[in-house]
């Protein structure tokens, strides 16, 4: 119950094409994250699945049934929005129960469903309040509760954590992961934050400019990226891209993750000067400006000290390097 299939889906606003042919299979019970920079079309794609945007061409199927022309309310989906989008004139209980009420569900059943969702999200004492009396974190929990009450085939999340502060974001992220385990429902989640994508997803879909760049499990994308875009987008801090020719290699670009660059005062093929140092306790990030490769990031575990403006030399770990051609495609 709840497999999603996209078949060559496109979307155009007038003459501008924003989704350029997306094919995707999301299996029942899977947690699928759409990730990409802003403007890549990930939210538009989610809205098309929800039925809030028309599909220009191609098919959207849930459980093998084409739903292109079905109204959002009849697609058996639930959506959680970035801005919570709670109904300001209704109490928490009524917010949660509205969709079922619209479907003509008996009152007792609505109360039961709302109470069950409230128990899962610790919303019990808030049930009779209005959204304006809740904090941001509570509002987002209510919005998630409103989605759970419907027992939809598909949960859609549109950047649900973006409006929360850092601590709350981590807590809510864990809560969503737990919900996914408990409910076993199919979830589609849109974010621009690759940490959220890595921690939540069974399957990540990396989008750029309306096209799918790569689909895979988080660690597959991290360890085996198809192109420079995915390599640069997944992983924080970002992967370093070096000019291969200057290192005597045949490919065009070499990608090295910051933890695979060794730094020393005297040894190494790449020379540069320290431009900035970030000490995070558990790790130290050194930003090195090099004449040939631009700004490179080095990540060392533990505490280290490299005076700013001092000259250092870097050694890439060739065995962990990724090689790309001139178009940014991976050479394997």
């Amino acid at each position, binding site marked *: 119950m709840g497999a999603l299939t996209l078949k060559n889906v496109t979307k155009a606003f007038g003459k501008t094409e924003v989704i350029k042919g997306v094919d995707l299979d999301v299996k029942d019970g899977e947690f699928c994250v759409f990730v990409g920079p802003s403007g890549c079309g990930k939210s538009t794609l989610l809205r098309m699945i929800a039925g809030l945007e028309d599909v220009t061409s191609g098919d959207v199927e849930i459980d093998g049934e084409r739903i292109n022309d079905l109204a*959002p*309310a009849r697609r058996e989906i639930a959506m959680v929005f970035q*801005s*919570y*989008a709670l*109904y300001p004139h209704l109490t928490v209980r009524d917010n949660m129960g509205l969709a079922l009420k619209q479907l003509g569900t008996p009152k007792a059943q609505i109360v039961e469903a709302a109470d069950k969702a409230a128990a899962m999200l610790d919303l019990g004492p808030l049930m009779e309040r209005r959204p304006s009396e809740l904090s941001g974190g509570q509002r987002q929990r209510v919005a998630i509760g409103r989605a759970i009450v419907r027992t939809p085939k598909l949960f859609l999340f549109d950047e649900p954590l973006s409006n929360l502060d850092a601590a709350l974001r981590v807590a809510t992220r864990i809560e969503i992961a737990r919900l996914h385990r408990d409910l076993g429902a199919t979830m589609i989640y849109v974010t621009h934050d690759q940490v959220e994508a890595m921690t939540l997803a069974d399957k990540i879909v990396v989008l750029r400019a309306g096209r799918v760049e790569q689909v895979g499990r988080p660690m597959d994308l991290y360890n085996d990226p198809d192109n420079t875009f995915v390599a640069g987008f997944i992983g924080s801090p970002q992967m370093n891209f070096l000019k291969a020719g200057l290192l005597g290699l045949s490919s065009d670009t070499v990608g090295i993750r910051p933890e695979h660059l060794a730094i020393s005062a005297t040894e190494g093929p790449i020379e540069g000067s320290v431009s900035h140092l970030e000490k995070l306790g558990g790790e130290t990030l050194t930003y090195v400006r090099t004449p040939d490769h631009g700004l490179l990031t080095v990540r060392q575990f533990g505490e280290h000290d490299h005076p700013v403006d001092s000259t250092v030399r870097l050694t890439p770990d060739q065995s962990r390097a990724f090689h790309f051609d001139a178009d940014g495609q991976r050479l394997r």
Partner: protein
Amino acid sequence: MSTARQSTTRTIAAHGVLILYTLIALFPVFVIVVNSFKSRRAIFADPLALPTAETFDLIGYRTVLQQGDFLLYFQNSMIVTVGSLFFVLLFGAMAAFALSEYRFRGNSLMGLYLALGIMIPIRLGTVAILQMMVASGLVNTLTALILVYTAQGLPLAVFILSEFMRSVSDDLKNAGRIDGLSEYTIFFRLVLPLVRPAMATVAVFTMIPIWNDLWFPLILAPSEETKTITLGSQVFIGQFVTNWNAVLAALGLAIVPVLVLYLIFSRQLIRGITAGAVK
């Protein structure tokens, strides 16, 4: 408040200007109200004096309430104003919702067309309107006035409301769609309550010209049964003799209902005017 941002001199100057403006704006109203309580002789002797024991006279109000059907005139004005207001707000909000919410061919052109009426005075079309009303047998009915005033008020209403409706969260409307609310429910239950301040602003700007209008009642509905208060007051103004007591009393009374309506809307109005500026 920190002294860096607001010095005492500036506060005094700002209040001075505002108080001066208030005095100038309220002066005619003050003169009308004061003189409506005075005898005819006292009005001409010293128009600016307050009524004293000798000059105090309610003759104006007595004349107004005895002569003519002033209660009927009031009722007519009220029906026309409230009726027009209702239709302007209803249709204006609906058009604004459609313009701000739905993507369709010619959307911005339609918005421009609907706003055009702000720049073209409806009175230019008086002859055509009169012909139309004669043809449809609506002359000397309140319906004619309500129709004309609705047309007159719509352009500004559509213009202001569509700007405000654009600011209503898309997510909220979409959440409603996913929960199975109809577009009408989304409009009436979700969007309208959120643009209430803008509705109040539009209501005040629409209401006052309608209440004060003399032109259309005179042309479209001058019969005794359909006279509005402004038209009704004219009976006291003659070519040679004007019953000033009665005119001033009628005008004084005419202020009351519009004041009441204004007070109802004003709490919302202040929020409406400052909404764009503060946030």
